């Protein structure tokens, strides 16, 4: 039923609805405070938020803060992904190691990374390293779990074929394990990228390490509401961009994989 509706030329493209939805949100955010449904001292009208956004974008402080957030995000994600890949492959490939580590991983994973906030403050103060500690801890598990699932998914026949052809361990990892685990890994990285942004902003907001989160906290305490909302919008856009980027990366790196080829 949906198939026929989209293929008729007269049907309104679905993207139009999406644009209408976004426009509706903007109109609502403008109308509610203007009409006094929501007090303007709680929620400034959308136009004021947008002009505050314009002012923010023209300041150097904004770009420095954005840079700090992005550095914490990218460095944390890279460390977590690297450690997750290496450990995941080692645990998955060495016999017996998975069974021995399963309970420890299951125990450590649900520990909320925010439990580390006091520790991060004591060890690093408001340094960038505080954010890094939280980001790495939170995103590491996402990657590790996915890599472990990927390693488990290796086709035993392919693995044994590679063995009987006398391929060394490096070649088996490179040509048998890696292609199998890559889709899982990229899912893990996509999840980790979102989590890393959450934790980077959280650390800045709560601890006060430099970045967008700290700017939001400053705007809030100095009662600069339009600026605060503008910065929140920026974090949302950042999140959207990161999601889109991760998906594009997935499509690019997995262009050979059934899940992407089948969809095209």
């Amino acid at each position, binding site marked *: 039923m949906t198939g026929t509706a989209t293929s008729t030329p007269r049907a309104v493209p679905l993207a139009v609805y999406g644009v209408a939805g976004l426009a509706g949100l903007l109109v609502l955010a403008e109308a509610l405070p203007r009409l006094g449904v929501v007090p303007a001292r709680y929620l400034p009208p959308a136009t004021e938020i947008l002009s505050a956004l314009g002012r923010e974008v023209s300041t150097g402080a904004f770009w420095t803060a954005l840079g700090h957030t992005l550095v914490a995000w990218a460095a944390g994600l890279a460390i977590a992904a690297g450690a997750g890949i290496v450990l995941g492959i080692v645990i998955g490939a060495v016999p017996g190691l998975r069974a021995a580590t399963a309970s420890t991983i299951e125990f450590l994973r*649900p520990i909320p990374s925010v439990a580390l906030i006091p520790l991060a403050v*004591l060890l690093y103060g408001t340094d960038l390293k505080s954010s890094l500690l939280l980001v790495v801890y939170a995103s590491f598990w996402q990657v590790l779990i996915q890599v472990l699932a990927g390693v488990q998914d290796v086709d035993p026949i392919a693995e044994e074929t590679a063995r009987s052809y006398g391929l060394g361990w490096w070649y088996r990892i490179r040509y048998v394990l890696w292609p199998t685990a890559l889709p899982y890994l990229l899912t893990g990285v996509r999840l980790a990228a979102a989590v890393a942004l959450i934790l980077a902003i959280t650390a800045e*907001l709560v601890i006060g390490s430099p970045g967008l989160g700290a700017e939001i906290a400053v705007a809030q305490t100095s009662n600069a509401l339009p600026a605060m909302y503008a910065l929140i919008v920026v974090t949302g856009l950042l999140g959207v961009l990161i999601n889109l980027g991760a998906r594009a990366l997935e499509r690019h790196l997995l262009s050979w994989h059934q899940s992407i080829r089948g969809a095209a």
Partner: protein
Amino acid sequence: MKKILLAVGLPVVLVAAWYLLSYGSESFYVPPLRTILAALVDTWTPDRLRADVLPSVLRLLGGFVLATALGVAVGVVIGTHRRVRAAAEPVLEFFRAIPPPVLIPVVMIFAGIGDTMKILVIVFGCIWPILLNTVEGVRAVDSVLSDTARSYGIGGPARLWHLVLRGASPQIVTGMRQALSIAIILMVISEMFAASNGLGFTIVQFQRSFAIPEMWSGTIVLGLLGVVLSVLFRLAESRVLSWYHGLRGTQRQS
């Protein structure tokens, strides 16, 4: 027997290593584990648990349950109407992409710093994964089942309960699992931000007064809370979704 040994082995080794390596620790920030354990027993008395952990857990559950109810309700509406879905999707994607902790300052403006604020923060943070997964789940309801239900004249609440919600429940549960870990984060952070009781508040209080072993013990309590909640969730999931896991199991065998 071997299974138990494997499950317990590494944790025991790790804790023992921590205990021994930190035994003579002089470092102010990394006290010996025995000091931390002593602090754990002394600090987290039943009174303390009732005064600080219970309110946290109640706020967490309140927010989580509300977010689930709202998320599923709105998700079913959006998921069953194609045009509503097309209109709502970009907006929802944007709201989901906002890191939930930045909502704390916003909600504080509206609701002050009381329990309402904390519950609202948890609701606003948790609702997106539940909502979006419900939308996906409702969309993916088996079309044969859907047509069968229609031709048997099953409609209204019966259709909603037995077909739509049942069919979407694996996805809904996935969303709830993601939401639960967000809920814990938000519970702690909202208490660290502004509170007069609760687990997050207490831990920050210890940290600010440089009561380091107590702070470590609080971190351990928080970690245990996370583990207990995830175990409880998994138990509930395996009960509710036993039909689904069974189905998947037989499909995999065939």
